[in-house]
């Protein structure tokens, strides 16, 4: 029931709050609303 994948962080990132904007890849026929998810970088 989960959709997932590897996320390696960029070298210039600093610890603290960030956003992960989630959406379906172009070409999908499924209706969705892009969703901003708050994450924390440690």
């Amino acid at each position, binding site marked *: 029931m989960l959709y997932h994948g590897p996320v390696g962080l960029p070298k210039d990132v600093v610890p603290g709050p960030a956003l992960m904007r989630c959406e*379906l890849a172009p070409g999908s026929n499924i209706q969705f609303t892009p969703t901003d998810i708050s*994450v924390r970088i440690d």
Partner: protein
Amino acid sequence: MNAHLRLFLAAAVLLIGLGASGGTLDEVRPKPPSKLPRFVSPKPLYGVFLFGKEKPTAVWAVLDRIKRDSESYDVLYIDLNADGDLTAANERFAGVPPVRIDEELRSTFTIGKFTDPVSSSIHTDFSITWRANRVSYKMKWNGNQITMGGFGTDPDTYGNFSDSPNKAPVLVPGHDRPFQFQHWMSGSLKMSRENDFKLFMGNPGSGPGTFSCVDDTFLPKADFVFATLIYKDKAGAQHQMKYELRQRC
């Protein structure tokens, strides 16, 4: 007032609420049921399902006990015709004897086929499961693929029914609305290693642990999720990095 008129008015109240609030579920709470059975438990547990999109239908569910000292919640009342009256004989389900799985006591109520009284859509294999720390549901939307909930961002935050109808979780099953996303145990990203970023896809509800999701077979095989990290560097400049989430479990 006849049943059809009451149903129409209930739908109208919900629609007015959605329009006035811009449609955010946090601001829309269906009116509590108007007629309740005499409960045995001193602490019945309330939840409400919001079906459909254009004309949302509020279906209340209340868990009770057969005996005051029952080990589990073993009776479910569910307002299948959405008329606000939970006393109809066909809206009472006695749970099968509770089972213990991995030290956890569960009662599962099998409702089976549910016909949305407003849209006439038929959903199948509808079940609600009580556990001491949460209540979950599952059904096949329009008789096809699964919708289920309610989920939080980790197992400790999965949703539970409430002892007050005014604080009852609002769950939004289904595949009718544009899907949104919620992370699962991925709110903290480590700089020291690669992270496995995991997502539910579905509908947010109202209240803690009320996300309803599709399963991992819902998306066509060619579809996947794009995730864009929006972050700042040491100088405060904003950057983005994109990831393709192509795995499922």
